[in-house]
């Protein structure tokens, strides 16, 4: 558990650094992906159970079900969130392509100069 949390914290720092400090637009978008994955990792680790089983009741597991079944909600939510992130990233990349056609660069500072 503690290793998961440390990894999540590292991902958060890396992602936030990428979004804020990197000049290249693609790197910013990668940073955004890393930052979202930190939340996914944290969220999914909430539902983690050592030796857990799928939350489906069968005649065999009816006694051990209450203690061993994992909470399915975080997994469902993270799946939804991954889909959302995928579509946002796809849209962001297509806008990036358009930006490259206009500005002939992906450097955000140079883009600002070119507009004025």
């Amino acid at each position, binding site marked *: 558990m503690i290793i998961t949390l440390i990894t999540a914290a590292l991902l958060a720092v890396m992602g936030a650094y990428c*979004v804020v400090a990197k000049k290249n*637009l693609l790197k*910013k*978008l990668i940073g*955004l992906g890393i*930052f*979202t994955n930190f*939340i996914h990792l*944290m*969220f999914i680790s*909430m539902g983690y159970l050592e030796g857990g089983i799928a939350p489906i009741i069968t005649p065999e597991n009816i006694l051990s079900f209450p203690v061993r079944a994992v909470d399915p*909600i*975080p997994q469902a*939510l993270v799946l*939804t*969130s991954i889909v*959302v*992130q995928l*579509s*946002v990233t796809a*849209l*962001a990349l297509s*806008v*990036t392509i*358009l*930006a490259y056609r*206009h*500005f002939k660069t992906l450097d*955000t500072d140079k*883009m*600002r100069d070119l*507009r004025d």
Partner: protein
Amino acid sequence: MIEYAIIALLAGAFLTPVFKRSCVPLAAILFSFLVMASVFMQGQTVIMKFSGWSPPFGIVWVVDSFNALMGLLVTGMAMLVAIYSTKYIRERRSRFFTLLCLMTAGLLGVTLTGDVFNMYVFFEILSIACYGLVAFNTDKEAIEGALKYIVLGPLASSFILLGIAMLYGLTGTLNMADIATKIQPDITFNMAFGFLIGGLALKSAIVPFHFWLPDVYPVAPSPISAMLSSVVAGTGMYIVMRILFTIFGFSGVMWMFVAFGVLTMILGGLIAIVQTNVKRMIAYSTISQNGYIFLAFGLGTNLGVAAAIFHLVNNIIVKSLLFLAVGIIIWHTGKKDMRELGGLGKQLPLVMVCFGIGALSIIGLPPLNGFVSKWMIYSATWEISPVLTAIAVIVSAMTLIYYIKAFASVFLGRSKCEIRERTPLVMLLPVIILAAVCVFLGVFPQAAIGAVESAAAALLNQSQYITAVLGGG
């Protein structure tokens, strides 16, 4: 019954590119408007359980008088904007309407839902449609604005998701009413609250996070600027209020919100004065008005919340009116800069009158609707501290300065552009309707105050909400 409103909008979004006719999205949006109007007229709390699972297990939609009011405004504005866009948007019209339907579906879902994760999903549908619509013109300006939006928007959404994840980890539920029963005054809950409010403040451009809005809202096509500046910003305010009062059940003066509201008001107003781009100026004015709303509900009193909701309603109506009126000017001349426009009053008298009504209303002059809500804000702040009232009046004076400047340089003076075409009736009609609503609500404020006060009462009565959803438990 309310689920059909969303189904119609989503179906409209998917059928528009198939049939490539403007009547498909118009019919979808009109249908959802009629559904929301009937829900609003009934005036009862509606609970919609998906697939029959009763809360807190399934997803529920809870429509009380505040939601119903917001839903009515959202679909009403979407309808006017859709009618307007049939002539304003000249190319790639079916793509535009697809995105507009998705945006309305997202807005409506966010306003109606009683489940925090469901709210997040609809918020993302809304955001993705917004990113697409801001970039719709695909010129240099639009792409740069869209890029700014598309990097900051997901960052804000991640903070909201983080807050939701923390709330789920602490309470084990996603239902708003069920979370509300399990809240404790505790540092971890406050952290979750901070992440949620931080993300939403970034999305709705409250002062430390206001820098992106003026680059984003004005570059979209004018009808979309109208939607963004009115209902999208308004929905952000709605969620903040919902989280604050329904989930966390705050009461009393919240100085943090008052302080941010005051800062937002002043800064938005000051920067708006020096703008020369008309759309950019109205965008800064939106920031300033959002500050008023933050200040008013930060007071936490019944009158304050009612004033905030009324100002929210007025801001939605007036900002749509102003952006749509400016859109007609841009449609004719292709220019946004005040210095290049001038003397349009003789050529577009109706647009001038409507823009004037909108400007006077947002300044807060009687007998228009903005006066009533600003008066409510003044009297609500007077009960807490007269200093806040003084600041609110001074910011109103600043509003007066920049709207008079815009009005004079666009409509008065020497004529600099010539208008050859006649304004299409479908573009003029929404503007006239909105201006008429402004005057009507100003002359007969009782018509709106009843709805606004019952919305404020529904919002502040947390236990009633919980009982309605969880059924006595």
